[in-house]
């Protein structure tokens, strides 16, 4: 299978890339990891006339915590970079849990975190993680940079608010005031299949209780779902059984799964509740076994 014919450019700077995108208008597309775009081009779901390959732009492959705790992921940070990171588990437990579950190991060496968020597939794992962590995407265009919360960034299935001459240059996760905890669970029929359902939970804990919470749901709606009520039910709690059950019920209630060959809507709602419970129970157990923070 071949994509339709396109012009290929591989600029060495972001400014050049943005100028190229500007010249290409709606028919131009950014190529990063290409693990969603290239299959879509081969199937002719996408037929850009101009492909702007950003892989030769230096300095975009980072993932790091700033001194103030802000976490930044560059546009060319691959899933495998995160999976193999030695610092991620301590800095971002929810991301560390999701990294090995994205696609399959070969796709992970090439696909990028930011590209996955930009693809805005409701089945995408990283968008749920971003929702749970209240993350933003930084878009750079001819007029400079702007930061957009992931909730607003994703405008619908496979749609974002990126302008045709903007590039998503990094993802930013705000600093935590408490101790981070959380997890990501995904049910898939086999590695690399789309998620039947997935749940991202990100918590901040202070003195044994939850000071901040976020829950994102994968694959159970037309977009990633931000389960705000379920998350709110956890804030102020010490993750007791009642709080966990309430969060699980609320998360399942806000999901909008459809029955398909991966399972019935009821089944998927049940999976959501089970995953929320499992992640929170796991956090609670780790907390009681870990030495108390001063």
């Amino acid at each position: 299978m071949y994509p339709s014919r396109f012009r290929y450019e591989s600029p060495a700077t972001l400014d050049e890339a943005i100028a190229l995108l500007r010249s290409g208008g709606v028919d131009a597309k950014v190529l990063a990891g290409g693990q969603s775009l290239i299959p879509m081009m081969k199937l002719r779901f996408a037929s850009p006339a101009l492909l702007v390959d950003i892989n030769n732009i230096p300095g975009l492959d980072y993932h790091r915590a700033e001194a103030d705790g802000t976490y930044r992921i560059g546009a060319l940070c691959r899933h495998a970079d995160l999976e193999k990171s030695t610092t991620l588990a301590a800095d971002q437990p929810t991301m560390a849990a999701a990294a090995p579950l994205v696609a399959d190991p070969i796709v992970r060496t090439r696909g990028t975190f930011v590209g996955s968020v930009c693809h805005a597939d409701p089945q995408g794992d990283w968008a749920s993680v971003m929702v749970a962590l209240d993350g933003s995407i930084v878009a750079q265009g001819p007029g400079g940079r702007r930061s957009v919360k992931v909730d607003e960034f994703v405008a619908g299935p496979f749609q974002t608010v990126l302008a045709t001459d903007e590039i998503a240059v990094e993802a930013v996760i705000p600093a935590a005031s408490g101790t981070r905890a959380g997890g990501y669970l995904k049910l898939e029929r086999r590695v690399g299949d789309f998620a039947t359902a997935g749940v991202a939970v990100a918590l901040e804990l202070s003195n044994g209780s939850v000071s901040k919470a976020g829950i994102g749901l994968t694959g159970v709606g037309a977009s990633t779902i931000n389960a705000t009520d379920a998350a709110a039910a956890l804030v102020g709690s010490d993750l007791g059984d009642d709080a966990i059950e309430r969060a699980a019920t609320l998360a399942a209630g806000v999901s909008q799964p459809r029955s398909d060959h991966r399972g019935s809507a009821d089944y998927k709602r049940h999976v959501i509740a089970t995953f929320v419970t499992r992640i929170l129970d796991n956090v609670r157990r780790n907390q009681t076994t870990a030495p108390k923070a001063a």
Partner: protein
Amino acid sequence: MTSLFEEVAPSSGDDVPVRRVEVTINGQRRAADIEPRLLLAHLLRNGFRLTGTHTGCDTTNCGACTVLFDGQPVKSCTMFAVQADGHEVMTVEGMATASELHPIQEGFKDEHGLQCGFCTPGMMLSAKALLDENPNPTEDEVRWALSGNLCRCTGYQNIVKAVLWAAEKLREGEVQ
């Protein structure tokens, strides 16, 4: 030098955009003039006649087309050949020397890690990427590393055995 491939670009001489790429394949520098939409898998197979790289599903699922790109496993059906310009690619043809199989190949032979053989090149390159990074993997780690490569014959048991066999052999340093 390899020129445009008929199946991708008709030789009508219209304004087909053509790019010169230079790729180091299995240690050898090769050049080709290609259309940007040519996939890496097809540059290897049709352009350079390295048909050890198989194309199975052509939809980024099966991993039969896996090659090492700068040492990392990639699905060569899901990369444009033009993106390999200036990079290093290793295919299954690069594993054995003139006289000796690579220990991973030997492992697949000795442990019956293949039946029809279609997935085997991809399996072996994913295995190589694993063993390059982790010379002493557990069975779980082998299964995890190969989880992007599908096999319809073996049930994976002997493939996993083959990789563990190779890991041991490489650790013993009997074959470099």
